[in-house]
């Protein structure tokens, strides 16, 4: 069911597009050799180029270009072999040159698309308009001094990728799913860490509303929203505000708005009339960026497998359900963990163990996939013990808990505690004989038709064998002796 909002005058549809600013993972900044590392003392990572000193010139960082191309390839987008930098001119204290070097007319990446999956399992495609490279600005802080503002230029000049979507998003859920998907892709590619709390990924959200069948109405842009939840909420709250404006006879004006997460509302930042005239023109300090197809091809050849492909492969290769595969490919580390466990083993069993006992243990112990409660190798070894019938599934659960607690290898635990499964039919037969003899009354009841008691006998035998009996052999022996 399509997402709509009910107003006084009828049903409204939400139209949304996202501009995601993703900070490029690179050693140094887009146009200078200064470190692009997050943090550090204020103004510790600033070169004369970043600070816009007289006579300083930008020099493109090839690694940042490669990262943008990798991201473009990951978005199934067109890579433009010719692109160009432009200057976007405006004055602000944390913009040292008085212009931002960006790509306006000729972005490095053109149209592409990504696949998102909604709660109900629907798959939808969201178009990518473009991706371009630009430099980040510094940070102004106005609350550090009674009468002065302070400026930290550590971030000034760090490479950003601006990923612009088509206005294909129709609900807060889609907006959230799209943002998560972009984050997943860039994390897989290693081109952006996607940490929205640190500001290395943030979104400008364009929202408008319309009645069914209408053309697009005026949109507003909500700047710098920094979490998936906030983006989803901003879409909803801004849509509701616009509906109210339209329905009360007003007109939505094109403007830039701010989302205030503490109040859960958007408010006007500047209107179209106050909008900057950025006076874009080609950056004369840089030559056009010309890429060779062979270079792009080489990057493409080394691209890691992306989540959508990996998910489909997991389904095919390991025979696991589409949903389960989605959980396992959520991030690269989990997917790698799964593959290490599943390779050469029962893929379904591996998936069940990871999404069941393993995730539960990870949450319980507060650990992560990078620092797991049980290593992939140990979990694999545990599955091997089940497969070669050294232990049965029930004992395996106990062994697993012991592994979480002690960090010991499963084989060692099994030996130490004597948990090896008994497959000696003589021993099993003896145990069955004893249980049946001890429970003659129940045997009589069984024989008079109380079939359910079969499970009781099996349970008693397992108990007598401290759970170590091979379940299939125990079943068989009980059946045989009951005649």
């Amino acid at each position, binding site marked *: 069911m399509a997402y709509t909002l009910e107003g006084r005058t009828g049903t409204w549809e939400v139209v949304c597009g996202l501009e995601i600013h993703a900070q490029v993972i690179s050693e140094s900044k887009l146009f200078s050799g200064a470190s692009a590392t997050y943090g550090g003392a204020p103004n510790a990572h600033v070169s*004369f180029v970043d*600070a*816009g*000193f*007289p*006579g*300083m*010139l*930008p*020099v*493109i960082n090839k690694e940042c270009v490669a990262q943008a191309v990798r991201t473009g390839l990951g978005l199934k987008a067109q890579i433009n072999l010719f692109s160009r930098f432009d*200057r976007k*001119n405006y*004055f*602000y*204290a944390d913009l*040292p*040159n*008085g*212009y931002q070097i960006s790509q306006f007319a000729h972005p490095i990446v053109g149209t592409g698309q990504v696949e998102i999956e909604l709660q109900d399992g629907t798959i939808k495609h969201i178009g990518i308009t473009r991706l371009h490279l630009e430099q980040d600005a510094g940070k102004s802080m106005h609350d550090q001094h009674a009468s002065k*503002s302070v*400026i930290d230029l550590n971030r000034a000049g760090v490479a950003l990728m601006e990923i612009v979507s088509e206005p294909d998003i129709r609900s807060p859920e889609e907006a959230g799913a799209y943002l998560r998907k972009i984050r997943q892709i860039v994390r897989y590619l290693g081109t952006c860490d996607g940490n929205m709390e640190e500001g290395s990924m943030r979104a400008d959200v364009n929202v408008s509303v319309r009645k069914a069948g209408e053309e697009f109405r005026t949109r507003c842009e909500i700047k710098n929203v920094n979490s998936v939840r906030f983006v989803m909420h901003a879409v909803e709250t801004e849509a509701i505000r616009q509906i109210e404006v339209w329905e009360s006879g007003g007109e939505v004006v094109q403007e830039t708005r701010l989302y205030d997460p503490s109040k859960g509302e958007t408010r006007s930042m500047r209107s179209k009339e106050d909008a900057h*005239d950025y*006076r*874009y*023109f080609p950056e*004369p*300090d*840089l*030559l056009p960026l010309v890429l060779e197809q062979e270079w792009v091809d080489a990057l493409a050849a080394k691209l890691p497998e992306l989540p959508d492909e990996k998910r489909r492969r997991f389904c095919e290769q390991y025979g696991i359900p589409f949903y389960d595969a989605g959980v396992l490919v959520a991030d690269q580390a989990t997917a790698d963990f799964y593959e290490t466990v599943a390779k050469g083993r029962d893929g379904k069993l591996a998936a069940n163990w990871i999404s069941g006992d393993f995730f539960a243990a990870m949450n319980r112990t507060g650990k992560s996939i990078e620092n797991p409660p049980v290593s992939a190798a140990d979990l694999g070894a545990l599955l091997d013990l089940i497969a070669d019938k050294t232990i049965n599934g029930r004992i395996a659960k106990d062994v697993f808990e012991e592994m979480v607690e002690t960090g010991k290898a499963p084989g060692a635990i099994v030996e130490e505690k004597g948990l090896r499964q008994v497959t000696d039919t003589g021993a099993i037969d003896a145990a069955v004989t004893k249980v049946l003899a001890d429970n003659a009354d129940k045997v009589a009841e069984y024989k008079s038709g109380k079939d359910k008691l079969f499970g009781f006998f099996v349970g008693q035998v397992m108990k007598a064998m401290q759970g170590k009996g091979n379940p299939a052999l125990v079943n068989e022996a009980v059946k045989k002796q009951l005649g």
Partner: protein
Amino acid sequence: MSIFDLTIAGAAKELAARKVSAVELVTAYNGAVEALNPRLNAYITVTPELALAQAKQADARIAAGNATPLTGIPLAMKDLFCTEGVRTTAASKILEPFVPQYESTVSAQLKAAGAVMLGKANLDEFAMGSSNITSGYGPVENPWKRAGADAKLVPGGSSGGSAAAVAARIALGATGTDTGGSIRQPAAFTGLAGIKPTYGRCSRYGIIAFASSLDQAGPMARNVEDCALMLNAMAGFDVKDSTSAERAVPDFCAALNRGVKGLRIGIPAEYRMDGTNPEIVALWEKGISWLRAQGAEIVDISLPHTKYGLAVYYIVAPAEASSNLARYDGVRFGARVDGVDLIDMYERTRAAGFGAEVKRRIMIGTYVLSHGYYDAYYLKAQKVRNLMLRDFTQAFAKVDAILTPTAPSAAFGLGEKMDDPVTMYLNDVFTVPASLAGVPAMSVPAGLSAEGLPLGLQIIGRHFDEETVFAVSAAIEKAAGFTALPEVRAK
């Protein structure tokens, strides 16, 4: 013969032969600077102690036998080149307190060659001007005088301080920068040789930007050979400037004696403009006959878009300047005038820091890039610029070099041509096309006006063919036999 009569090449020989030491040479120049600079105002900042220290190092280097032709040679550095630890102002009040912590590539290369810096030469503010009257540190006086008159004349601009210093012999050579004629026109006004190399030949790193797509460093000196010696040291690829050319630098001195025999020299019809000073036209004719006499073939050519040159230049250069000068905001370096808030601080700082011509060009540039005007002005200018480049490309299919006058007149008086900025802009009419096309061009002193002022001829060459430009310039120089000297000079 006085020590001030030596050229760079001559001084290098004397130094190598130990007939004079670098300390002696530099001490003499320091003294001349001290004596004449108060009058000429050719330097904004003088660095005599630094010069002497560099001279001592130069002597040690000469003694060690690893000198270059520039080791120990005292030069003036246009105050647009950032020099580490030495105040660099671009002749603007907004940079009055600015001392760079880095060195421009060109000045660093000269330093590495052992050249000595006497001081930072005056210029038009941010290199915007053709007479050096827009400097925030006062105008420069041209050492030349009209015969029998004492009126102060301008040295041209923007490299007017560099020109006056070399002409008055208070520097042996000087660096200049040329955006629309800022090396060639002042060279012509002061009887010097000066070359604007191909765009990309010298690194722009550390040169305070005026118009990035046009700015190019070059030498100004007493003769063509000295320019070649200096350019040898100044040129070369620099990873720090993406627009510098990754190609080998030939030995420009080797081209000086090639001669012009068999060369085809183009004479562009469009440079014969109505109302051009007949003296200038006559000098041009002389230049043509000199080259013909030395065996060159003279070819009439057409550069059809020449008439748009000034209009294009005064759109493109201010557009880039308006953006390049945005960084002078009082926040991080230079002068600041406090205000009630950020915008107020910007406005007060920039109102106080920039002079009238700079403000005018920032406004022109902002206007031509504005929404709604961009296509009509900036974009159209870029298209015409491409056509002008094509003019040159087509011409250079037929000729090896082009000969034109450098400037439409001799040096004019301080205070003349002040009523209308456009009159001033017309000074650049012959120099701007080569700048827009990025081709190398040199001005050579070729004669005197009836009033006894030097006049220059301009030689334009193909991209990265400075060698032919040097060869033709040397031929003109030889034929012209220009030996006149300015009235004000170190003796």
